[in-house]
């Protein structure tokens, strides 16, 4: 009977692995039948472009969720880094003209915010959702305070090229997102941290027994996520040509929806950055399809909310949890 249990477990694994992809394909076919424009090259590139920022953000968030933690500071960090990068390139408020050198600065600030998340969460032992909620709001507050509620306009075409420029007809933002994905995939598959993230998310005690520096890894992963959010902030600023505190509104929701819908379990240990890519496309395709079908854009958050519930309900191995809070 033990063996039977094992097979049913891997059966569940199989379902988890392929269900998101099946959903994505079904969605594409359905929307394509409804509106043939969906399948046009132009729309395809539009889809890729709108997936770029969510992909970058999801790369960071996936690692955190794989550890069984959560990061609610996405919007705070993205807003902060977008505002800072806007002020460092040629703009209508400050006189800095760092050009592309502003990018690593903004990413580093994202990384530092993530580091703060990690250090507070690990050292003070505060639950991650509370820590990141507080730090995220602080980030949002800093972004608002720097600009005093105003908007900064970017006047640096080289910087905006990061999002708007095209190579082989595909926007730069997409190439950057692809690069971010490859980096994340390498981290996940080819580094020690990658394996340790899974180990911590599956069973922290076993991870400790194996001599894994659990605390350091947790902090490092939060900092790493901050770097990705920083890059996300840069892309957002480049795309809109401006920076303001509300630039990241709705990003947290999309990010968590995408990660969870892609099949990464909130309980940790199950999933991957590849899943998150599929999740991003499910969310983006759905949003695109809704626009094509003439559904009001404000319905999207509602649909995403329902998607989260449905995905989590389908994927969560509830037998493992006795008490849920």
């Amino acid at each position: 009977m033990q063996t039977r249990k094992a097979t049913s477990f891997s059966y569940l694994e199989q379902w988890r692995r392929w269900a998101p992809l099946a959903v994505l394909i079904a969605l594409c076919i359905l929307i394509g039948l409804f509106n043939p424009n969906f399948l046009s090259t132009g729309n395809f590139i539009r889809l890729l472009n709108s997936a770029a920022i969510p992909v970058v953000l999801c790369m960071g968030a996936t690692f955190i969720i794989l550890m069984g933690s959560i990061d609610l500071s996405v919007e705070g960090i993205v807003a902060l880094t977008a505002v800072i990068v806007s002020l460092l390139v040629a703009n209508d408020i400050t006189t800095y003209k760092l050009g592309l050198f502003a990018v690593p600065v903004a990413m580093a600030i994202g990384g530092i915010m993530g580091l703060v998340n990690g250090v507070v969460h690990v050292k003070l032992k505060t639950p991650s959702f509370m820590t990141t909620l507080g730090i995220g709001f602080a980030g949002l507050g800093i972004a608002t305070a720097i600009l005093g509620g105003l908007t900064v306009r970017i006047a640096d075409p080289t910087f905006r090229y990061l999002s708007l420029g095209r190579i082989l007809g595909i926007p730069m933002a997409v190439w950057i997102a692809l690069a971010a994905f490859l980096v994340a995939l390498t981290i996940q598959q080819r580094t020690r941290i990658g394996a340790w993230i899974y180990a911590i998310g599956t069973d922290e005690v076993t991870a400790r027994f194996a001599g894994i520096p659990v605390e350091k890894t947790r902090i490092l992963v939060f900092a790493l996520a901050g770097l990705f959010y920083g890059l996300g902030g840069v892309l957002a600023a480049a795309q809109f040509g401006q920076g303001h505190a509300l630039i990241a509104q709705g990003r947290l929701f999309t990010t968590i929806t995408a990660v969870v819908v892609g099949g990464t379990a909130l309980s940790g240990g199950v999933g991957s950055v590849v899943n998150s890519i599929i999740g991003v496309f499910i969310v983006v395709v759905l949003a695109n399809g809704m626009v094509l079908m003439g559904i009001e854009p404000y319905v999207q958050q509602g649909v995403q909310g329902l998607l989260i519930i449905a995905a989590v309900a389908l994927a969560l191995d509830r037998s493992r949890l006795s008490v849920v809070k």
Partner: protein
Amino acid sequence: MNAPSSIPALEVRGVSKSFPGVKALDNVSFTIKRNEVVGLIGENGAGKTSLLKVLNGIYQPDEGELLVDGRPVTLASPRQAFDTGIAMVFQEQTILPSLTVAQNIFLGREEEFLRFGLVSKARMNEAAAAELKKVHLDIHPGTACAKLSFADRQMVEIAKALSLDSRITGNITILLDEPTSVLERKEVELLFAIIDDLKKRASIAFISHRLDEVLAVSDRVYVMRDGKVVKEFDGKDVTEKDMHQHMVGRQLHTEYYREARQTACSEKVLIEARALSKAGAFRNVSFALRAGEVLGIAGVIGSGREDLARCLAGHTKADAGTLEVNGQRARFASVPQATAQGVGLVPAERKVEGLVAQFSVAENMTLAALPKFVAKGLLNFGAETAQAKSWIDRLKIKTPSPHAMTGGLSGGNQQKVVLAKWRIAGVKVLILDHPTRGIDVGAKEDVYELVRDMTSEGLAVILLGDTLEEVIGLSSRILVMRDGEVTASFEAPPGGKPTQIDLVQHMV
């Protein structure tokens, strides 16, 4: 290998380890010689696993010392134990399903496969394949462990411990805690062959509940009881019967268990179970529980008796079979359903499921019967306090007041609060899961007295005793379980009780 072989590979001298309320290890001395297989046997809770966990650096001993190759060492973590040449195969598996076989084997030790900061999968898989070969497991090292059967995962777990062999140049020691419980016969034989082969190079400690297995592989056997080593058998000339005798030990005193108060049970059946089964836990269990009866259930960990008890209390659902209460079919699909039928469980984990430590004594006592203390929608604090006071007197609970925090009481008094809770709720059947675990002798006697009180009032008790002597002393009837099935049933009238050896034969 150049040290004289008279120095033991691993030696434990006078080690003690206490947890709140229990002395898990009491002045234990124990040695594993070079190239020797040492068996370790004893009842549940005798301290076998605790001893191995000390050897593996998971527990740090309160007293005593550890010597490896004759040198004193302190092991702060399993990782340090590994680097010292000691690896352990755990009773509860530590294989992580989300990682590959190779990643599991080398978890936390990836540095030897690093190349420019990246882990070389090819080299890691190659090294893992060599380890898998030792346990004759023909799977690709890149397979995710989620896809393996439990038995295969166990073999990977063993391979992980054996990987010590090719990493450490000195002597190595492998600790095996119930490695065979999920293995099929063929795999067990393979494991024994591996152990035999490994002996040339390593020293081994081996825990199993199956005494025949221990006899088959061990050069020497230690028997543990109540945290102490009580007997050491040398050589292979020992029989299962000898081992039984030392595992159980003491003779029981009829006075201690209040046998004079053992009631002849009435004919009134309170609960009847027919062919209850639950996959992976127990099969085809039937019994009738009568008013005034103490039904003892004996069995080792994995015998299914804990699962059966939780099922009767509504914590888990049975897959098949029926339960009747007072002759009526009854559903026990949830705890509220079971309590509504008058069944309560006094759990082994007192602080987790027994009581709310932050609640006052009175609040805990009325937790299962709150509606009885409500008037016009509000709690009737006066009635609650009065009821609590009467039970505090009746059960001789030592507490400064009914409003004192329960978490501050001693284990024995806490247990009495749990018992009072179910008495106030008016249960007819009380399931006691290790009711005297971690409480002192005086409180134990109080609990026994209480059990007799309950049965003379016509209640019935199902007892999963802390020790065999407790089961025998208190019960009027005893079921013995092994591997999820009832293997024997004994009547236990005062003066005609079965012996511990009678029971143990059917347990292991």
